[in-house]
């Protein structure tokens, strides 16, 4: 029974994206014994591959009132409960000479109906508010858009789930369901790091696998037809804008520019991809050219701004019709009770939706699970702050203090405060070693790296990047990768594994760089190769492997 108890949960949540992490947190907050499983690392799917836009809902207002209303509600909730993951920048929907200005009224009306504050402002005012905006604009509407860091948001949800008793297993892939008759009673997991398998049991299993949920459902015997729509984006080297820029027209390609942390992101394209490709997204030269061409219309200075990388995600939409663009499909939340739908008790799928509505998706899925388990506890995720966002930040913090010309903490800790919110207090800056920077572009200190290794489930350098921004800055790891690998080697006591990691990490960075490798990006890559292959001989290591 002891063994059984350890391997038996109330709920197993499959998928370490924002939906899975949010659902695990909600379950844990309601007192359910919860396990979150993810085949790779947290945020490796669509969660880590989007704009990071804190939608006001304005983008959907004209085409999809329901989504728009959900968005603005969740937007306001996230500002409160996920303060350290959110930047309250506001956004502009601009009308260019090639656009129809009369759409502006339709747009404002629709926003107002959905409860979104939308205010037409003078183009001159828009230029003053956002100097990077296309100077030829003929109209602008200000809306409460913002940006949200999906890595931080997911990490905080998973962390809070753990703080409330849940277990989180990354690198554990569901390879089969365990059934008792028709009922799903557990899952068979493959540990992708050790290649061991283990069986885990639960009363309820929730499929929050995003686009991969299609396969997971199939494994359980249910059919959920999902629509793989690829969206490519580009990351620029610095923040050219401080307000989110949108086009005031029907949603189209590459018409959102989002400032996030030290960078900004343009996107997205939209194209249908075959299922076989969803694990291996490549950004094509045509997509890059399109993103640049359209991006320059929002902010012309993008034409000569350094591009750090290109990436693509796959939207986890539930197919409803045959629209090849994937845009007219509702972003609506789909919560499937497979007991009633497919006669598979113990199995729930939560899908559709979007980053913005993850909390609501989690609430629906958890409500359903609770109902089945006879748990009556109310959802509290709209009120309880995530770890790091608990209380008002102190005086002198980045958000609250505009009197910036005052003595302040050292460079590493001030950036860490933005990333970990109030949890940054846990980062050691006690001694000079801990204050030294590992990543100079993104100001990540040794203390922060050690905090992430100890508290945020870091197994390798790529995990570390997602928790801290190591290697996400201008040099894409050239200067910091080896330093961070050294620290990992020290923490794990395995130099060889750390060196393997180093090779994987640099290759992962390269995958985002080669689609945009010209000008400085190519110089940077060549320099990185000189250092890691020429001086260090890392290619010899990669070959030996």
């Amino acid at each position, binding site marked *: 029974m002891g063994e059984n108890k350890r391997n038996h949960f109330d709920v197993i949540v499959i998928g370490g994206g924002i939906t899975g992490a949010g659902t695990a947190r909600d379950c844990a907050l309601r007192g359910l014994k919860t396990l979150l499983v993810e085949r790779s690392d947290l945020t490796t799917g669509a969660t880590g591959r989007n704009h990071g836009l804190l939608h006001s809902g304005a983008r959907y207002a004209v085409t999809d009132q329901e989504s728009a209303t959900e968005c603005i509600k969740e937007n306001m909730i996230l500002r409160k409960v996920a303060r350290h993951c959110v930047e309250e920048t506001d956004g502009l929907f601009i009308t260019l000479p090639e656009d129809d200005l009369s759409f502006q009224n339709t747009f404002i009306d629709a926003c107002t109906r959905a409860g979104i504050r939308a205010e037409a402002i003078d183009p001159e005012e828009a230029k003053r508010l956002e*100097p990077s905006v296309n100077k030829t604009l003929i109209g602008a509407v200000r809306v409460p858009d913002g940006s949200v860091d999906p890595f931080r948001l997911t990490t905080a949800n998973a962390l809070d789930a753990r703080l409330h008793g849940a277990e989180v297993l990354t690198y554990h892939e569901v390879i089969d369901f365990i059934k008792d008759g028709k009922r799903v009673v557990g899952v068979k997991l493959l540990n992708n790091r050790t290649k061991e398998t283990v069986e885990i049991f639960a009363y309820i299993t929730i499929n929050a696998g995003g686009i991969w949920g299609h396969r997971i459902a199939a494994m359980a015997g249910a059919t959920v037809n999902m629509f793989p729509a690829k969206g490519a984006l580009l990351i620029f*080297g*610095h*923040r050219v804008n401080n307000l989110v820029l949108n086009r005031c027209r029907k949603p189209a390609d590459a018409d959102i520019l989002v*400032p996030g*942390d*030290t960078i900004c992101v343009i996107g997205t394209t939209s194209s249908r991809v075959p299922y076989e490709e969803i694990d291996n997204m490549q950004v094509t030269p045509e997509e890059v050219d399109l993103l640049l061409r359209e991006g320059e219309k929002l902010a012309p*200075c993008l034409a*000569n*701004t*350094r591009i750090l990388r290109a990436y693509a995600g796959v939207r986890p939409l539930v197919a409803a019709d045959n629209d090849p663009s994937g845009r007219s499909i509702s972003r609506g939340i789909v919560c499937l009770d497979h007991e009633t739908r497919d006669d598979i008790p113990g199995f729930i799928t939560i899908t559709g939706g979007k980053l913005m509505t993850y909390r609501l998706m989690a609430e629906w899925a958890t409500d359903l699970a609770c109902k089945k388990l006879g748990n009556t506890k109310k959802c509290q995720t709209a009120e309880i702050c995530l770890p790091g966002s608990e209380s008002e930040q102190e005086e002198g913090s*980045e958000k609250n*203090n*505009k*009197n*910036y*010309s005052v*003595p*302040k903490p050292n*460079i590493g800790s*001030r*950036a860490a405060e933005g990333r970990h919110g109030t949890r940054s207090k846990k980062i050691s800056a006690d001694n000079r070693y801990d204050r030294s920077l590992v990543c*100079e*572009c993104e*100001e990540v200190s040794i203390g922060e790296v050690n905090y992430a290794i100890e508290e945020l489930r870091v197994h390798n350098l790529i995990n570390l990047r997602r928790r801290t921004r190591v290697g996400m*800055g*201008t*040099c894409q790891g*050239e*200067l910091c990768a080896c330093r961070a690998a050294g620290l990992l080697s020290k923490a794990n006591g395995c130099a060889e594994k750390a060196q393997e990691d180093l090779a994987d990490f640099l290759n992962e960075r390269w995958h985002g760089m080669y689609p945009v490798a010209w000008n*400085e990006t190519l*110089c*940077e890559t060549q*320099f990185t190769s000189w250092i890691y292959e020429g001086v260090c001989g890392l290619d010899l290591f990669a070959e030996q492997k």
Partner: protein
Amino acid sequence: MEQNKDDKSFEQCIKCTVCTVYCPVTAVNPEYPGPKQAGPDGERYRLKNPYFYDDSLDFCLNCKRCEVACPSNVKIGDIIQSARLKYSKKKPKLRDYMLANTDIMGSLATTFAPLVNASLKLSPVKSLMDQVLSIDHRRTFPAYSGQKFETWFKKNAVGKQNNFNKYVSYFHGCYANYNYPKLGKDFVKILNAIGYGVRLLEKEKCCGVALIANGMAAQAKEQAEINMASARKAVQSGTPVLTTSSTCTFTMRDEYPHLLQVDNTDVRDNIMLATKFIFELVDSGKVKLSFKKEYQKRIAYHTPCHMEKLGWAIYSTSLLQMIPGIDFIMLDSQCCGIAGTYGFKKENYPYSQKIGEPLFKQIQGLNVDLVATDCETCKWQIEMSTGVTVENPISILADALDVEETERLNK
């Protein structure tokens, strides 16, 4: 104001760390974040939120040695100075105001020169300045002259200048005007000897380098506009604007546009050090120089930081090497540590001296008669720290010049 491509040079940084090797401040002051962090790295964060601005950027000397070293053409020094002007909320202290207003202070001091010079040497006065104004008491102050260069020129030289058919305009700067009019006189002597009449600018203000360094951008901009208007008139009348200070030259040519947003595109190429002007005339065979046989000196040349950035040391040193009696030594190009008003400040004094130490040691080990350099503040620093006399190359050329023979050759 819209960012132009140059303002985004921070993006060309590929994080190679070369700049950190050549920063004289990093080597001595751990409070300074270093050129890479203060410049391109910090700029990304400041664009995100001005909260990330840090007052430790004040430790930057603005020597631009990081820029000279950078293989990716990142304007590191410019980024740091622009950030200081844009984000610093520090109010200049009375001390900064006094140090920065070189021409107001100069006018006052010249009038009472004997008194001022005497009192600046007194230790109670120095101690008072140290405690009240935070001007370091160990610092030797440059002496002020009793008669301004401008006054001398109007009284003694202006008449003669009409006897030429080619002219240059002279931006004398504060130093030649208030502290060392001999430099201005030497300039006039050489230019006259090679057949050029000298004119002063219609109106000349301090170039503003010290105002910029002390965060007084608005006043610096006013002065810059006056200087550029005068320079424009001079250039339009067909005379180049010559200078005898590398720092004034560098400021007017390269700092006005990006730090003060004062456009100088139409005059920039015509503002230059006298040594560049003279060298090019000699190099192209248009002018010949003749030197006194008896002039025999061992001279070492120090490249001021802004001269290094301009890349113009070659002109001054080539001219000096034309003097047959000179035993010429090129010092390693490194910062002397003073950086204008920087080294006068109590908080910077020890760093200032530490930065200059290798240079001082090199000079002291050479047993030279003179050190030549194109910057007046380097002169003060080297004289104070080594005891060796320092002269502007123009003064050395003037002393060595056989005026009559030169005049004859250039008739």
